[in-house]
């Protein structure tokens, strides 16, 4: 691989562009491929096979050839509401697990850049903040403030936009009250029951990193279930 190709790959990764690396295993030539375009030169006749790898989000050698295809898809987006202590550990875990984190918190003293370097922190109320984040059914929401003023509008947004994972921090009692409010706001039982509350897998830990671990473990579990 040429250094120039490596640099281009890193640039594409940081701008969250989807692409593939095509390598001719015989001569070591490699090329970056963008979905929907035609592959260049020696790779041009494998255009259909390359698209197939993309669709199945897989890597591999094209049958009866010496061409290796490695696809890079966009990381899953995770929106955290509440720039709290647990969120700092979630950010750490998410880095190695390759989730793309955005944090929403209208409270400026929490949502400081110093507490969350390199992370998109939106210092606004959820309604306005979601205007700045592109979301879809492959987005996850982790609500951590357990303050209905902040969490509820985010949970409502996530339910309406059919996020694949929605979790909310808080005790059983807090969650019961939350469910009651969502029911009064017109959400169905199925929708309300899809919220993971109290959030996380029961590991027994009480410290901020332990709770973050239980949340991120549940997120990974639910990702592969869908």
């Amino acid at each position, binding site marked *: *691989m040429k*250094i120039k190709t*490596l640099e281009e790959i890193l640039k594409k*990764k940081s701008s969250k562009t989807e692409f593939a690396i095509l390598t001719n295993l015989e001569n070591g030539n490699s090329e970056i491929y963008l979905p929907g375009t035609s592959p260049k030169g020696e790779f041009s006749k494998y255009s259909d096979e390359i698209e197939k790898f993309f669709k199945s*989000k897989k890597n*591999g050698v094209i049958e009866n050839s010496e061409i290796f295809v*490695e696809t890079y898809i966009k*990381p899953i987006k995770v929106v955290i509401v509440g720039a709290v202590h647990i969120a700092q550990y979630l950010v750490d875990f998410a880095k190695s697990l390759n989730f793309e984190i955005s944090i929403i918190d209208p409270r400026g003293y929490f949502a400081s850049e110093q507490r969350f370097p390199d992370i998109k922190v939106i210092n606004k109320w959820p309604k306005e903040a979601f205007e700045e984040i592109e979301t879809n059914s492959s987005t996850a929401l982790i609500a951590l403030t357990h303050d209905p003023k902040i969490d509820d509008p985010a949970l409502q947004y996530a339910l309406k936009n059919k996020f694949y994972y929605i979790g909310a921090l808080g005790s059983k009692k807090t969650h019961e009250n939350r469910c009651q409010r969502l029911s009064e706001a017109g959400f169905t039982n199925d929708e309300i029951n899809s919220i993971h509350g109290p959030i996380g897998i029961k590991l027994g830990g009480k410290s901020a990193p332990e709770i973050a671990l239980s949340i991120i473990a549940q997120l990974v579990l639910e990702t592969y279930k869908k």
Partner: protein
Amino acid sequence: MENSFDEKILDEANDWIKANQKVVLATVIQTWGSSPRQVGSRMIVNEKGDFSGSVSGGCVESAVVSECLSLIKDNKPCKKIEFKVSNESAWEVGLACGGEIAVYIEQIH
């Protein structure tokens, strides 16, 4: 649903190159049977034999390191290496897990 698979080895490769090291990139390109790392798993090796990342569960990394060092020494661009099931009673390099893998090594130049 799948999350994107990226262990950031290429990012590290770039750091090594910036530090004026020679870097060989090793990638799992094919697997058969039960193999510990999926296709696309990566490892990097420099001219001193330092390495980062993995292509198996620790079974063949030492062999990959020596292959990478030979690649640098012979100044060859790339090579494909296959690893098969090991005989557990012998001290040899192989995959105790019973799988087979093909690893592609290439110099970043």
